[in-house]
């Protein structure tokens, strides 16, 4: 497959601080690519480099094989949906969408035809003469998308455009964006700090931290096989137990916790030695509220702090070995009432837990 966006060793420094630090990426044509990271990780800077509002200090940006470093933003085959959408308040919806076509000197008749068509495609037929301020949040979102898509860009950049919407609408728009991307076949580069947005919509997700990519993988791989403790912690909910490595066999590490209990999990990387400090990550849904069901399963005794009812996402908050753990509380009747301050057994399949060496050891 051709790649629509190909970057090598991009660096952008502000003073001595590198906001983007040796980032390389390769986005195949027609895919939905997300860059996920906490605020301040450099993802917005990266996006501005791609859009041309900023120049990299080092490294190259290629779009469809063309080097873009010196190309000003208005000449790049790249369009952007801004965080606050940046719909022109002095223009109608139709004029907003037609803006880019006007700049390309598309004749008026052709222009209005294309504006009408794209409005239909995003599900807002006939709204050309409205003022953007009269639209709802979700409608504005679609106008901002239409304004870019009407230009048929090689690459569409999206800068956390769902951040301003309320929760329910955001859930809807996630799915809709995914459908629109499939329908138009345009390559999307989407940046967000919300891991659920990235997971639901993307073909590939790059997790970014301190100006660098920690891991680039499909969402499921990120979730099941995180390559760094940061990814394990940042993507999805996770529990962390820290202890000392006391046993290693067949890729399974045994950890001694402060309470004296022993737990085990799969090693993320080979090379951990007995005696090192390490962290074990186990997802709340992987914790079973029963004593070890099979041989080789790890188990831990914990005391319940409280239960958090949230429908399908209900959890038990418990404490074990001085550390807080969350376990999923199935609502199908398979688990009885869990009273606060009672003691429970937590167990898990070690293959579902991941062990990383603690930073600095």
């Amino acid at each position, binding site marked *: 497959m051709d790649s629509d966006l190909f970057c090598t060793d991009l660096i952008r420094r502000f003073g001595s601080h590198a906001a983007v630090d040796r980032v390389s990426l390769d986005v195949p044509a027609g895919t939905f690519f997300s860059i996920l990271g906490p605020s301040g990780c450099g993802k917005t800077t990266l996006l501005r480099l791609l*859009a*041309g*509002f900023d120049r990299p200090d080092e490294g190259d940006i290629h779009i469809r094989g063309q080097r873009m470093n010196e190309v*000003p*933003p*208005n*000449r790049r085959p*790249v*369009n*952007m949906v*801004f*965080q*606050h959408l*940046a719909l*022109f*308040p*002095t*223009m109608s919806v139709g004029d907003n969408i037609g*803006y*880019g076509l006007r*700049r*390309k000197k598309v004749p008026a008749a052709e222009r209005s035809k294309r504006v009408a068509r794209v409005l239909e495609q995003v599900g807002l037929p006939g709204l050309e003469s409205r*003022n953007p*301020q009269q639209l709802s949040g979700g409608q504005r979102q679609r106008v901002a998308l239409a*304004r*870019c898509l009407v*230009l048929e860009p090689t690459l569409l950049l999206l800068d956390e455009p769902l951040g301003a919407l309320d929760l329910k609408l955001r859930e809807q728009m996630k799915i809709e964006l995914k459908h629109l991307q499939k329908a138009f076949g345009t390559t999307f580069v989407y940046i967000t700090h919300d891991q659920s947005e990235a997971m639901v919509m993307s073909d590939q997700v790059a997790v970014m931290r301190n100006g660098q990519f920690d891991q680039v993988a499909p969402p499921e791989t990120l979730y099941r096989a995180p390559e760094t403790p940061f990814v394990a912690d940042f993507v999805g909910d996770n529990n962390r137990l820290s202890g000392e490595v006391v046993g290693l066999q067949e890729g399974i590490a045994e950890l001694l916790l402060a309470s004296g209990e022993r737990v085990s999990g799969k090693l993320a990387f080979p090379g951990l030695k007995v005696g090192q400090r390490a962290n074990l990550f186990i997802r709340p849904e992987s914790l079973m509220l029963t004593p070890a069901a099979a041989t080789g399963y790890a188990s831990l005794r914990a005391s319940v702090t409280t239960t958090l009812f949230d429908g399908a996402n209900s959890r038990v908050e418990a404490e074990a070995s001085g550390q807080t753990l969350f376990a999923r509380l199935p609502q199908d009747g398979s688990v009885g009432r869990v009273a606060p301050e009672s003691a429970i057994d937590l167990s898990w399949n070690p293959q579902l837990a991941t062990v990383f060496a603690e930073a600095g050891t």
Partner: protein
Amino acid sequence: MIRSVPRSSSFDGLYLTYLLVFFVYLSLPLLVTAAFAFNDASFPSLPWKGFTLDWYFAEGSGRTGLFHDDGLLSALWVSVIVAFWVTLISVALGCLNAILFERLEFRGKELLYVIMLLPLVIPGVILGVSILVFYSGMANDASSLWGIELDVFRPGLPLVVGGQVAFITTLCTLVIAARLRKFDRQLEEAALNLGATPVVAWFTVTLPWLLPSIFGAAAMAFLMSFENFNTTVMLTGSDTPLTVALFNRLREGSTPVLNAVAVLLMVGSAVLAVLVMGRSSESAR
């Protein structure tokens, strides 16, 4: 004090009475001035002798209406010309200043901003006096030392325009800068992103955004110039603007023609204000 805090009814009554008295105080002088423009008596005072339009249209027969009073009409025309130039120059300068202070970063910006505000805290008379001393002094010196006549620098319309521009520019700058401050820079980036060059982006996105404030500033500049007396009186030469001419008439004694001019001024300002407000509320929608 506020709606949700209970108030006694006597307090409410007192408050409303106060409001009423206030608005009577506010409107009485203007209402009275306007009324006497239509009184059929040669002196603006009671008793009421009946309605007349003589003070606008009469010619001869002891009464000269406003529209046949050449002195006032030419003064009106002088005011219009002055206000036109003042508006043009002040709004142009105001736009440039607004961009300078809102968009650019440079050393000493804070200091320059405070200097920009200075004309607001200088009394109008002083502003007029200093410009008179500077330019007329220069013209006097040029005349006595080298025999060059710099008539532009003698009291007259160019100096009047200069004196008014000195402080009206600050007001225009403040109005336009306030609007520019609310402009989202991302809109310009969006325009670039959609294929516009920086110049095109400025004219298609930023300028339309500023337009309401530019119209507002222009209307304000025109009114301020038209009504200014303190600065103008120091700088005026043989062509007197309307306010100065009215002042001179008033010192000779008041006639209902002055009331007629006052009504004309009020109506003119009201029309201008309503036009601008209509425009700005339209663009706000």
